[in-house]
């Protein structure tokens, strides 16, 4: 049989509604942007500061998520212990927790009166209300995306090649770097992209844990939140910037996937 197998005739109906459910609000919001003032609004000092802060913190959060989350995903994928399920459920909690709750949890740990925060504060290291707090908040909510994505890819890949490498005399570290990592790169890339996108859009945990101050903690979502009551035109213009960045990020990841499949 050539060509693709047919889908049921009624499947496109809910599918199209589902697609429109996302497309219509975004298009409607885009329709509110005033093209004449768009550039001026987006290049205002507060806007540029928020955009730079957002991109910088999201990149930092993604980097930390990679360094900490990739090993975690590998351990989860290779583990045969029955405690893995519980550990995974806990680590993936931020996927399900409302971001504000995540912010409260971070306050309880790293806030001035928090478990770790009090100790750090006594030694002169203040976390709350700093850009570092923004990075921590974004890492907290975005790292599970990376862990879940990479673990899934690793499980699919299996460990056949790693066994072969071991029989050929490669040590665990060399196997990990030269065999495991290259094979899981597609999953790693999509995980990093999801992680970056989630970190970029983070709002609730940032507002609760890091506060809101221009240039320090007021990321683009927070700037939109502030501007929506002061200057709705600016809010919509910045929202469009976020939409474009999101499209670029998602588009970049899917282009790579198609290249890999080809």
């Amino acid at each position, binding site marked *: *049989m*050539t*060509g*693709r*197998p*047919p*889908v049921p*005739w009624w499947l*496109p109906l809910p*599918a*199209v509604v589902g*697609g*429109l459910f996302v*497309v*219509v609000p975004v*298009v*409607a*919001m*885009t*329709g*509110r942007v005033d093209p004449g003032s768009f550039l001026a609004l987006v290049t205002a000092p507060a806007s540029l500061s928020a955009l730079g802060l957002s991109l910088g913190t999201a990149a930092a959060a993604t980097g930390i998520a990679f360094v900490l989350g990739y090993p975690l995903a590998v351990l989860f994928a290779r583990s045969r212990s029955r405690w893995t399920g519980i550990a995974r459920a806990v680590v993936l909690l931020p996927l399900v927790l409302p971001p504000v709750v995540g912010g409260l949890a971070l*306050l309880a740990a790293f*806030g*001035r*009166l928090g478990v770790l925060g009090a100790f750090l504060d006594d030694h002169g290291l203040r976390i*709350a*209300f700093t850009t570092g707090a923004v990075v921590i908040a974004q890492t907290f909510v975005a790292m599970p995306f990376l862990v879940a994505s990479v673990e899934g890819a690793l499980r699919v890949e299996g460990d056949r090649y790693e066994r072969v490498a071991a029989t050929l005399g490669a040590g665990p570290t060399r196997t990990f770097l030269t065999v495991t990592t290259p094979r899981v790169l597609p999953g790693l890339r999509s995980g990093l992209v999801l992680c970056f996108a989630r970190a970029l859009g983070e709002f609730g945990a940032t507002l609760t844990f*890091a*506060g*809101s*101050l221009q240039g*320090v*903690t007021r990321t683009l979502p927070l700037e939109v*939140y*502030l501007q*929506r*009551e*002061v200057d709705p035109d600016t809010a919509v213009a910045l929202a469009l910037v976020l939409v474009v960045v999101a499209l670029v990020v998602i588009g970049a990841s899917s282009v790579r996937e198609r290249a890999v499949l080809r």
Partner: protein
Amino acid sequence: MTQVRICDEGRASMIQRAIRTVAVVMTALALLAGTAGCAAGQDTGRDSGSATETPGVLHGTVTVFAAASLQQTFTTIGHDFERAHPGTTVRFSFAGSSDLVTQIDAGAPADVFAAADQASMAKLPTDLLEGTPRAFATNVLEIAVAPGNPLGIGGLDDLTAHDVQLVTCAAPVPCGAATARVEQAAGVTLHPVSEEQSVTDVLGKVESGQADAGLVYVTDVRGAGREVTGVPIAAADRAVNTYPIGVLRDAADPALARAFSTYVRSAAGQRVLADAGFGKP
């Protein structure tokens, strides 16, 4: 076998064409909706007044949108109003005044709106309000610090010290506007570590120990009891916020809404407000 293949391909491409057509039509509709939506402007169209009650007897639910700083007092006033008029229910939504303005503007079902300053009320399109909003209270700022004032804050000047973590309201919020006025009056420039969307968020950060000090209303300090200590600001009375209350034209029961607004400005309502620390309008 050949027959099945042709059938499947034909059906598959038919489905693809169908999807494409529907998608194109719907996207066109979506674009039209997007451009028409902002041209058509606001449409809150609700049926007003299912007023089947006997004239003079109030019953039903009145929805009151009130500034965050009014939470404790208005809740009490709401209970008093329900007791005075059995059969009525008062439903509240408390948030920063600018949040409430945005919601009402976008069609949220409010009957009465009480803002924390006249500038916020002025942001509401006049055609949404019935009549002129009336002032019902005033409020001034105070510095909220940890119980016992461990850092020994004496006034606004002490807040500019480097190791004091100060939290204030963001400029678009009424208490933020008052903060800016009081800074100007006192000739001090404050450097907060965070600017919050409502005065209750500022108070919350001081209460939880996240911040050393916050600029809130005197009513918030009084309402927090032992959770915070208040430090008066010398120039506070040069930045007074006047609270207006207005009835919305699209109120479900205009008579009930007006009755609540009147109650707030009556002796009973004013007593509750005065007890909490609000000033006279």
